[in-house]
């Protein structure tokens, strides 16, 4: 079910996601997604190293990658580690977009989209981590806040997708996106993620 390369674990879901990206967007898009995702994870890893926590492993799956580390770090630092991914994405996107050219712009676009997507406050993303940290810092029940945010955002996406589908005959992108986000978020919450 999985391939181990040192600390990196590639689950079958990652292959499935790669295949899906390849089929929907072609080899160029797949390469762009790989580069953008690598930059994003590198951002997390660099920030994690600064906090002094010890890296246990990286696990790539269908919905993205998980970084496991050992050691307690404060809420503020957790949020910073989470934010470092999208920040790295932005750092990659800006110079590449200035460079121009179809492929550079594609990578920049994927990286920018990935960064924005990761700031959505859904359990499965970095934004969700930041939201949980904020909720905890504010003394709220983080789990409930997360669950509510997931329901509102994913439900909203599916609803908007359905509206688009019926009013303009548009595609299924939004609906698929909402459903995948929802299932992945539920998995994360069910596993009792500590953050």
């Amino acid at each position, binding site marked *: *079910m999985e391939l181990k390369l040192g600390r990196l674990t590639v689950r*079958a879901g990652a*292959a*499935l996601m790669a*295949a*899906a*990206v*390849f*089929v*929907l*967007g*072609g080899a*160029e898009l797949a390469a*762009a997604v790989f580069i953008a995702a690598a930059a*994003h994870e590198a951002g*997390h890893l660099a920030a994690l190293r600064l906090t002094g*926590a010890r890296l246990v492993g990286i696990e790539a799956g269908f*919905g*993205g*990658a*998980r*970084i*496991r*580390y*050992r*050691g*307690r*770090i404060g809420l503020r630092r957790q949020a910073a*580690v*989470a934010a470092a*991914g999208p920040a790295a994405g932005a750092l990659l*996107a*800006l110079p*590449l*977009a*200035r460079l121009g050219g*179809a492929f*550079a*712009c594609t*990578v*920049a*676009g*994927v990286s*920018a*989209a990935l960064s924005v997507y*990761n700031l959505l406050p859904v*359990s499965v*993303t*970095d934004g969700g*981590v930041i939201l949980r940290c904020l909720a905890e810092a504010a003394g709220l029940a983080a789990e409930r806040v997360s669950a509510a945010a997931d329901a509102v955002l994913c439900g909203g996406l599916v609803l908007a997708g359905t509206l688009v*589908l019926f009013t*303009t*005959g548009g*595609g*299924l*992108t939004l609906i698929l996106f909402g459903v995948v986000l929802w299932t992945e978020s539920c998995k994360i919450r069910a*596993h*009792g*993620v*500590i953050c």
Partner: protein
Amino acid sequence: MAYYYGETADSSHASGDDGGGRAFALPVRLLVCFFLCATALIAKVFFPAQTAAVLGRLGVSVDYREAAEAIGRAVGGEEEVGEALREAWDSAVDTADNAPVPAAAEEQGAAPVFAARYEEPLTAAYAGEPVPAEEPTYDEAAVAAFRETQAPYASRGVPERATYEMPVLALDCICPVMGTVSSTFGYRTHPVDGAVRFHYGTDVAAPAGTEVDVFADGTVKTAGNSASYGRYVMVEHEDGVVSLYAHMSKVCVKAGDSVLKGDKVGEVGSTGNATGACLHFELRVDGLYVNPEYYVSWS
């Protein structure tokens, strides 16, 4: 696309995915996953046209790469952000400007939005027309019929870069692709949002992968890819005639190639701003867009 979690003291709660209770399900999941990957890859690599057609039928004929590139250009400041987002939205959510005509309309050949109800007489509407009145036309009936379809939009005048006239083409020409006209040249009211836009070409619905042949002898000026046109080819002919073929799944020529009437330039697809497989065909004469339907019959 990443989330991460920390472990406090030990890894006792680590991902419960592979628990013993589900051990028997593991080979099955692995098999399903492998099967899906293999099918997808084989389909994409060896049967690209059919894959595009199937995806189109499933409603995901979307150019995600194009959407990403548009966003990238916006980040670089090369394109206005609003415009890029609109393009990305169009590519990603797949609401095309030039295709969503109801199936019934396609069968009739002309969109019902053109059903002419023109109580208003044609007055000064065409006064600003850039083409001299003496421009020779050789099918007055066709021109008159087209003008009738445009009568409801008379108050908007003729767009600066277009003409409703039918210049004589000193060219031997053929039909680029057989199919059903799904969107005609000229003004049309969007069936959904009600906005009126000018369509500078003719959309011909045909199965993805259908061969697209060049309209007449000429030289390929551009073979490119754009957010709205998708994969397209522009060919220069004699006497200032230029033809353009857009939304193709595949382009078979490159800039500078000489082509003879009927040569294959590409295959029908749904790249760029298009829903479903169709050829968007444009014809320009001396820089003005003309109605391709004057010269070509598609079936």
